[in-house]
């Protein structure tokens, strides 16, 4: 542990700092977690204030000088797995960050009700995981000022300060940054394609839509799986296409990511953009040629995965990490054979720029919010922010992702090797849903070459990521009506692709969307955008 501390601070002061940290840790460790002095502010060292006003530029130094006083922290977070993490791992975190952590787990399935109840009853914790920013209740709570606005604080913490401005803006409500953003990769989508099929047919990996069309037609007509039957399609689409893969394709054609700003400065949805209609024409062409599976409008995500593993089709527009999932499933089914997936993250229209639309709400999964009712004063807030910062460091990240070194994982060079998958699932996995910054993943190498490759490509996506402009904007009409009238453009898409509607009908449906409240959303968003951007 000492050794790695050196690396991540990397300053002349590092030696003294690590030594003093170690001392504090030992010192605090001896009066193990039961001390309740933490909430009284008198124990908070003045160094924090000093660094806040003083040397802001050197984040490493700022954090180095902070004494991490013992503090009790309760954390209301979401449990995405069956069982909470083991006490052993929590103890390790307590020791690492010098805190006494108590989790209140909310099962993911009941998160809305429980969160509503918690907000209604005011029975919250020091840290509350708010991961449903589209939920009107959570949104209203975040914009109401019941949580600390952390914007002016986080720049003092070296890891939190690295959060990109786009991410910060994306979780603001009413201009307030009511919590520390849950950082995720910005854009994970790309195209995965069967390399072995390409090889068999003597084709190159496509990078433009024009090349993609050729490859797709070959997959449909030239029997890429070599079973002598004309039984393959190319592009495996599913019922949520419109929201996920088709949105990416429209993005290739220049459509914005959900909401974008036009040249006249209007904030408009993607389905009114020319690129959207061009992408629809491509999909219709694909559907008619048998490139897309005929049952895509009813295919569930899991069936899509099955179809990919079984080689019913050879192209999927999806998260780049999915190639590995398809491969693993094929192995489970005993079908992997020569299966090899090529990953493409620079798909574009010939002569146009590469665009990757963010599929993770601009790279944030919500916020960790600190309610003013629980975190009474600035000193306590700063101590909690320090804790969150510590957990975004490499060590903190490893604790929450992989568990305890030597027990759950070992390091080989820069690779993390899991020791016992079952034990990890039981004792650690739940914590990985409460990580502060998932990007730290990419600082490690991965044992699996497929994962290593997709990690690299996902990081590469950030360079040409397209952001949704709407999250920081306010529109009352959007909050109440959007989910109700979204079905107009969405249904029209499926009906057009499957041949039930003409392009004129589609435009009529989109006009209906405008009439039933869409125009109001555009106006309100535009006004809000002008207000924010001068």
């Amino acid at each position, binding site marked *: 542990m000492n050794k790695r501390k050196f690396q991540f601070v990397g300053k002349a002061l590092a030696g003294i700092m690590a030594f003093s940290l170690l001392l504090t840790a030992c010192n605090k460790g001896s009066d193990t977690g039961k001390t309740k002095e933490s909430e009284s502010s008198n124990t908070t060292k003045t160094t924090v204030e000093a660094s806040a006003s003083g040397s802001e530029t050197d984040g490493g130094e700022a954090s180095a000088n902070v004494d991490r006083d013992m503090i009790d922290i309760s954390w209301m977070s979401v449990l995405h797995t069956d069982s909470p993490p083991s006490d052993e791992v929590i103890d390790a975190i307590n020791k690492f960050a010098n805190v006494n952590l108590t989790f209140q787990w909310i099962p993911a399935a009941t998160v809305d009700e429980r969160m509503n109840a918690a907000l209604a009853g005011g029975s919250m914790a020091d840290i509350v995981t708010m991961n449903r920013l589209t*939920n009107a209740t959570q949104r209203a709570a975040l914009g109401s000022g*019941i949580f600390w606005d952390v914007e002016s604080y986080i720049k003092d913490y070296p890891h939190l300060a690295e959060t990109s401005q786009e991410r910060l803006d994306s979780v603001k409500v009413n201009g307030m940054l009511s919590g520390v953003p849950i950082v995720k990769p910005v854009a994970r989508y790309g195209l995965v394609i069967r390399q072995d099929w390409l090889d068999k047919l003597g084709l190159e990996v496509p990078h433009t839509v024009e090349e993609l069309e050729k490859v797709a037609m070959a997959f449909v007509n030239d029997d890429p799986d070599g079973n002598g039957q004309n039984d393959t399609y190319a592009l495996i689409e599913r019922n949520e296409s419109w929201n996920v893969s088709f949105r990416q394709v429209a993005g290739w054609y220049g459509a914005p990511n959900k909401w974008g700003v036009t040249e006249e400065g209007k904030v408009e949805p993607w389905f009114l953009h020319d690129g959207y209609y061009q992408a629809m024409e491509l999909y219709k062409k694909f559907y008619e040629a048998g490139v897309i599976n005929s049952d895509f409008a009813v295919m569930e995500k899991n069936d899509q995965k099955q179809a990919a593993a079984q080689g019913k089709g050879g192209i999927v527009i999806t998260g780049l990490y999915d190639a590995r999932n398809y491969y693993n499933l094929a192995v489970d089914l005993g079908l992997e054979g020569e299966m090899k997936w090529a990953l493409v993250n620079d798909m574009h229209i010939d002569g146009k720029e590469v665009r990757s639309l963010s599929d993770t709400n601009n790279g944030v999964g919500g916020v960790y919010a600190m309610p003013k009712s629980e975190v009474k004063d600035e000193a306590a807030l700063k101590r909690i922010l320090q804790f969150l910062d510590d957990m975004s460091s490499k060590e903190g990240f490893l604790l929450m992702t992989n568990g305890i070194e030597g027990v759950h994982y070992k390091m080989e060079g820069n690779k993390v090797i899991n020791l016992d998958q079952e034990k990890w699932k039981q004792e650690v996995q739940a914590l990985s849903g409460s990580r502060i910054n998932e990007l730290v993943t990419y600082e490690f190498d991965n044992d699996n070459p497929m994962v290593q490759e997709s990690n690299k490509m996902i990081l590469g996506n950030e360079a040409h990521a397209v952001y949704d402009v709407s999250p920081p904007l306010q529109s009352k009409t959007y909050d109440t009506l959007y989910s*109700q009238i979204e079905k107009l453009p969405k249904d029209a898409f499926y009906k057009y692709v499957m041949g039930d509607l003409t392009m004129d009908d589609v435009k009529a449906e989109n006009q209906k969307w405008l009439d039933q409240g869409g125009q109001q959303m555009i106006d309100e968003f535009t006004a809000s955008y002008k207000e924010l951007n001068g």
Partner: protein
Amino acid sequence: MTSATDNKVKKVQKVKKVKPIKKKGRLANEFKQNWLLYLMILPGLLYFLIFKYAPMGGLVIAFQNYFPFLGIKGSQWVGLEHFRRFFSSGDFAMLMRNTLVLFGLNLVFAFPASIILAIALNEVRNTRFKKSVQTIVYLPHFISWVIVVSIFYVLLTTEGGAINNVIASRGGNKIPFLTDPKWFRPLYIIQEIWKGAGWGSIVYLASLTNVDQQLYEAADLDGASRMQMIWHVTLPSIRPTIITMLILKIGDVLELGFEHVYVMLNSLNRGVAEIFDTFVYTAGITNGQLSFSTAVGFFKSIVGLILVILANRLAKRVGEDGVY
């Protein structure tokens, strides 16, 4: 959802209490004499008061812009705004039509299916065969809708679905069962019957065991055929049960079951498949619009209550008992 039945219970309780009130002394006297009986209804009474009536107070949020952290006191009052939005949205007519059509089909096909099944089982003389059939037809009830609809997906899909494979191998054109709006209603009813008929027949089988066997013997002596016995003896004997079940069913007219329709719904069949529950789910619940969702739920309960009262009156007018 249950408020229609709650109101029914409320009526029942009122009737019970109304009787003795005439003079104050009489009530006290009555209470003194039968205090043990009153004590016995106390747990039930408390149950309904605490878990059914008290929460009804929460209905006021249908008239507010309710946010949990503001509470009922702090939330803004908006009057009938949510109702206005609901009734004036272009979808209301479609939702009403879809709901009523599905309910009608349910009533015409699925409701009698249980009765027919029960009577058919009742006619089976071999007990072992009867018991095993009974068990088998109950089973689908315990399968969740997600599974039922998935089974139909596997059978009916156009990419390798068993039925379309057969059609294609005989040279026919594949039928898009799952996306063609014309096929939604038949599939819905077939699934309802497959899943629910066996379970629904239990109550009729129970009431069939109470039919006086002498009636059959008498009918037999008069030379009645099997069909005539069913028509003139069996059916009239279970008529009260059928009427009761029918009235209860009518109360649920707008409660078709969210899960079933939701898993069948897609962009292509929405025009015939969207019902109140699925609409509220996408338009209100998914993004936490509690007040709007409550307003729609309130509307459904009121319609259900009115229909139960009407159906009950109708039942009484034709000489049946009704449910209260």
